[in-house]
């Protein structure tokens, strides 16, 4: 399969007259950007950077994802983008958004923000719809375009289709004869491909890798923000295990339900507000526990790996309760602190190996 990379995708999109928005993690109304002919390209780092530049602006106790994003910006990694959208995900990304807006005057890039409420109540829904509408007005003012409801609905449907394809791929994980590294490498193309392209390539993927004989390795659930370094997947597979349940922010936590309503803003809001249980959204321990148990059951998983980007406070809080209750239900778990700019340490590798051995 020949899937274009990020840079190639960005350049091609721009050649056709489109604009590009770099989007920091991670809940945002993708369809809205597309309706303005803006390609959202997500920034989950990039990983494996030497973050010397960001260290002049952020303390060392800020997570490596935020460091990397800022470092990438400071080292001209974002020079080909027109906008940077910072959804309000956590205190650190809030701080980053504020730094961009208040201190980094950049005439070539416009910084935008988006606040997704922490609740799932009617007030949260109403606010989200207004927040999306506000973003619509900002984009209309920046681009001079005013996509009508029909256009908006078209892109909403495209995005909903891409999400349902992602959902299907994750649900049928054991039916694809491909290792986890390659599987997730493909899934992560959704971070920069248009919904239409992702759906098209997903079909090719399915045709190429679908097997009659499901993978029978030991299943595990992977939980956390982003699986970096991605070597984690190779290590899991080398130890006769497979990621059969996904509780990752890049993928499983963004399996949005289809929205509904006559207003495109409300429809997008409904979809975002009712996302799967998520630490970053401050969901209850119980809600998250039920999600993990359900993922473990559906994927026939015996263990959970909490793969935590160091200093990611929202993830840490849940762990004592989740681990205790998972254990009571017969599901073992392990917590690994990672830095997206570093390789897996020998100690981490050994811990994963021992953990997986105990499961098989």
């Amino acid at each position, binding site marked *: 399969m020949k899937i274009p990379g990020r840079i190639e995708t960005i350049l091609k999109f721009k050649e056709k007259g489109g604009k590009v928005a770099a989007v920091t993690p991670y809940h945002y109304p993708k369809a809205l950007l597309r309706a303005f002919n803006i390609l959202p390209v997500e920034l989950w780092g990039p990983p494996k950077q030497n973050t010397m530049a960001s260290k002049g602006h952020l303390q060392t106790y800020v997570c490596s994802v935020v460091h990397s994003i800022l470092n990438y910006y400071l080292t001209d990694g974002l020079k080909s983008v027109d906008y940077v959208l910072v959804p309000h995900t956590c205190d650190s990304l809030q701080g980053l958004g504020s730094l961009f807006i208040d201190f980094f005057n950049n005439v070539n890039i416009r910084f935008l923000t988006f606040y997704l409420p922490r609740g799932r109540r009617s007030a949260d829904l109403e606010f989200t719809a207004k927040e999306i509408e506000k973003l619509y007005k900002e984009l209309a003012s920046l681009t001079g375009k005013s996509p009508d409801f029909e256009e908006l609905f078209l892109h909403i449907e495209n995005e909903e289709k891409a999400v349902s394809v992602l959902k299907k791929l994750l649900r049928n994980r054991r039916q694809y004869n491909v290792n986890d590294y390659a599987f997730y490498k493909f899934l992560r193309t959704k971070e920069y491909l248009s919904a239409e392209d992702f759906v098209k390539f997903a079909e090719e993927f399915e045709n190429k890798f679908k097997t009659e004989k499901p993978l029978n390795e030991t299943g595990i659930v992977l939980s956390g923000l982003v699986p970096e370094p991605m070597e984690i997947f190779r290590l899991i597979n080398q130890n006769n295990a497979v990621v059969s349940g996904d509780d990752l922010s890049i993928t499983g936590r963004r399996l949005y339900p289809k929205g509904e309503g006559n207003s495109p803003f409300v429809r997008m809001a409904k979809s975002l507000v009712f996302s799967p249980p998520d630490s970053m959204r401050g969901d209850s321990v119980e809600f998250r526990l039920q999600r993990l148990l359900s993922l473990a059951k559906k994927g026939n998983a015996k263990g959970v790996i909490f793969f935590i980007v160091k200093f990611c406070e929202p993830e840490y809080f849940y762990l*004592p309760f989740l681990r205790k209750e998972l254990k009571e239900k017969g599901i073992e778990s392990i917590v690994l602190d990672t830095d997206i700019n570093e390789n897996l340490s020998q100690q981490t590798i050994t811990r994963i190996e021992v953990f997986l051995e105990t499961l098989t």
Partner: protein
Amino acid sequence: MNIANLVKYHFLGKILGKIFLRIERKKGEKKIKKFTGKNSPFNPPLKITAYTKEFVSSHYLKGRYVEGVKPVAWVTSGAPVEILKALGFFLIYPENHAALCGARKVQMPLIEAAEKEGLSNNVCSYVRTDIGSLITGETPAGKLPKPDLLVACSNICQTVLHWYRMLEKHFHIPLVIIDTPFIYGEIEEHQVDYVKKQLENELLPAAEKVSGNLLKERELAKVLKLSKDATELWLEILNLCSETPSPLTIFDQFVFMAPIVEMRGDKETVDFYSAMLKEVKSRVNRGMGALKKERKRVLWDNLPIWFKMRELATKFAERGICLPISTYTYAWGELAPLMDLNKNEFETIAKVYLSPILNKGTGHKLNTMVNLVKNFKLDGIILHSDRSCKPYSIGQLDQRNKLVKEHGIPALLLEADQNDMNSFSEEQAAIRIESFLETMGV
């Protein structure tokens, strides 16, 4: 209401407790005399200092016996408490409790207990302190009353949302989240509307249900007025610290601020700050400062390092360095003008609670610091880079650079933590403070 509990609450919590605390106050007054003797760099503290401890302790003392007498809510420091007060709730602030543990230097065994239970050492040290207290049952307050309701407002950080989810799981009681969107620029109508709706449709019904009381508009207006009065008095006291010499230092303020955080909305708090204002004014009129000698004046940014208060206060005082104001203590006064009593109460509350410095951008904080430097005639700034408080600390590196380069103000970044001693290097802090004082010519 249980009669036995009611009797205990009034007899032990109020009458006997009051006597006990008064004896403790006398002891405290003697200690203060020693601390401010002939060789001390400090002038005698305000007379109200010893009473402050009595006043704050009386709150915790009542708390020991309040279960079954009044509904109890545990709330974040930035929660809109006026509604709860008007419904008769007794309030506990876990953040303040954690600070109390830090100031009394009993926090480390609690932090260790929380970490032993699986809570990462990368989590806010207030949380670790408080969760440790829950696990061990240890607290310098004697005993904290069990909550009937939890209220978390996100206007100070996202951390509190997760913290209160843990409490929800622990206590199995209702949690109301008041989500306050972060204000990157100016407050917008839909943001106010959102917070107002949460107050009306989420907090009020839950609090009414738990308390069994219905909100009386007159009572809410009364509490809001008391809250505004206390906040205005606190602001007036702080503004008097712009005088030279300053009648108070931040180390005094960190102690005196407890009532404005945890007892705003009470008449006693207004009385307390009225008395304090009178005394502070009298000091200003007599030209009496907190320090015997004030050579330089410095701003403190961020939370205190609770377990190092005394040492830092002495260290600076010995060098004639007065810290007359901090962004943190000022934050509890600067919202007073927003408390418009002529508007709909819920709208006023929504606007006020959207506006804390921690819910606004780094540029806003920089402007606040620059204004404080100007208005309080300051010579430098110490920015406490607090490992536990990311929303307060992120942006400080750029703020420091701008303060130095664009405003010509000497500024020091001091790496530490509000409660966790393991994140504080005595030696490194001493060296950095020394170097900073040298650059200011002290």
